[in-house]
């Protein structure tokens, strides 16, 4: 885990999905470490560097936020909204990762400043495709 490569922060409440994403990263050979938070409030806390996340050595600032929309406490859209209000976080790339194919969700995500929108595949084993896509497009 080289601290020079910023991690990918994955905001996801489904533990299985996190498992599959880690497995996919490993399978595809993504170098970035995957940090996970399980609700919107934690995501905001991590990005803000509050509470337990104040220690940037242990919890480095991520280079990419992979965001599920259906998060408890604070939803994915709320997180996006909070991010827009944070000027110093304007550079952060956010890719929405959701099982919702609804056009209105895509539009809203784009309006709130999401960089990309990926649909969750039907099987956890297919997260590898997603990982490859992430690497190609947003993980330089």
């Amino acid at each position, binding site marked *: 885990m080289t601290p020079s490569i910023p991690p990918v922060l994955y905001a996801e409440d489904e533990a299985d999905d996190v498992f599959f994403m880690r497995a996919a990263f490993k399978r595809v050979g993504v170098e970035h470490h995957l940090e996970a938070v399980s609700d919107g409030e934690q995501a905001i806390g991590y990005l803000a560097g509050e509470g337990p996340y104040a220690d940037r050595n242990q919890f480095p600032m991520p280079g990419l936020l992979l965001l599920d929309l259906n998060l408890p406490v604070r939803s994915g859209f709320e997180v996006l909204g909070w991010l827009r209000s944070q000027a110093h976080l304007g550079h952060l790339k956010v890719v929405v990762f959701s099982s919702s194919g609804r056009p209105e969700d895509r539009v809203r995500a784009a309006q709130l400043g999401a960089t990309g929108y990926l649909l969750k595949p*039907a099987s956890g084993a297919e997260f590898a495709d997603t990982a490859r896509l992430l690497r190609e497009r947003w993980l330089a």
Partner: protein
Amino acid sequence: MTPTRGLIAFGLWKPRTAVTVALFCLCTALMAYLRLHVFADRVITLTYGLPLLICLWYPSLALLWSLVAAFVAMSAYKAFVLLPPMDNTVNWLMQLTNILVVAAAVHVVLLTLRRLRAANAALEQSNQELIARDEEIGRQNEELHAQTEELAQQNEEINQQSEELQHQSEELQAQTEELQTLNAELGKRHDLLENLLRSLQDVSGGDSSPAQLCGPVLQLFRGVARAVAVVQQERDEIAVQALAGARELEAMRWPFSTSFARVAMEQDKVAGVADLALRPDFTLARPRHGAFRAVLAAPLHVGGKPAGVIEVYSEQPTSWTREQFQILEWAAAQCSLIMEVRRLHQQLVTANADLDRLVQARTSELQDLVTELEHFSYTITHDLRAPLRAMHGFAQFLEEETGPQLDEQSRGYLRRIAVAARRMDQLISDALSYSKAVRLELAMGPTDPAALLRGMIESYPAFQPPNAQIELAPELPRVVANEAALTQCFSNLLDNAVKFVPNGRKPHVRVRAEEHDSMVRFWFEDNGIGIPPDMRQRLFVMFQRLSKDYEGTGIGLALVRKVVERMGGNVGVESEPGVGSRFWVELKRSVN
């Protein structure tokens, strides 16, 4: 024949050369013989002038003067040659004079004769003409006469007709007067109705129909009635609701029990009193001067119940005629009708307002329900997908990572888990599509089914040879539909047609169209496994899979039916198990 005529007649002989010469010779010869031979030596009294008179008879100037010449010669010969030489010159001269005078006279006569002849001829001609004209005039006269008679006849006829017309004119006059009277009557009735209708349109005020009624009714009874009032029962009194004629009655009241209005209401028909002086048991409104001597009353009804009485008051005793009874009955009926209409109209307005409120409330409720359902369907599909992802993913991982170590049976199990998971995912997708199709507004417009089908076939290898043979009929008319929805339907139908074939048979699908009335029916004819008759009922019902041998969620056809119905169309199927099926989709033909 007058002498002149006779002379002229003689003078009409036409001189002819041969005759002239003959006469000349004859006369000359004769005179010569007589005078020169027989009486050669003496003077005779047979004058030369005598033969000249022949010319009166034979009017030839040539003969005359030739004879003159001859006689002059002869006499000269005789006087100077034949006779002893004496002094015959005087004689001879006297003879000469004789001859010449006679000749001259005859000459003049001849000329006159000639002129007379000419004049005569002219006169004759004129006479002829006159006669002819006379005849013509006579004829024309006759004609005129005949025509005059005819005209006289016609004149008589015209006179007759004129008399008839006169009669008819008088009749018409009488009828016109009658019609005018009727017209006036109708005019009054028309006024009455118009007033009533106006009162109907005036929704702001209360029910002014009774007030509108009184004036026109008074008009109808003009000359007979002094006042017309609409009265109502208020507890034990009669009160005047509306009035025309005697303003002073406006605020009057009189007891109900002895009123004539009570009689009219109880008997529920038009009633009248010819002379109230004979009926002291009735109390009535009293005008300022004198009293009413006769009354005619008709009840008014609203909603089937008596709502008052219209009374016509007269100051003279009046034997009310049947016609007057009828008029008042008619007027009362009109007024009752109008009042009833107002009442019903009011009811309708209230009912409508209530209905509107109800509809709005219900719509709002439904809207909420729909939104809830939408939210529910999305949440549940999302929630279902998460565990599905996990199950599918882990099964696949197991297969990949431990597969080589497992026996065939275990590997089979893992595969079947994966298959089941895929099916469930498809089911969730379909369920989502179905609920969307059910809910959403479908924007409709002219659609080209041929283009959609061709696009579909081109995009999916499953629809192309060698996997399948899909034939499109050349004429596929345009229909009114939603393009996306129609694509989904056709896609489902083609999918089914291509999927449900017996082993080893290559799917062959034919798409054609039939037009009737304003609808177009698209047939999807396949050579698949077919559908047994008892299954056809459940074919289009959701989640009904009729065959376990082929993959599918059972939603496809239910979706097709729902969507087509929402586009105003219909679906159906005909089938022969083992041979094939013919699915049909019917939609409205597009005009452009």
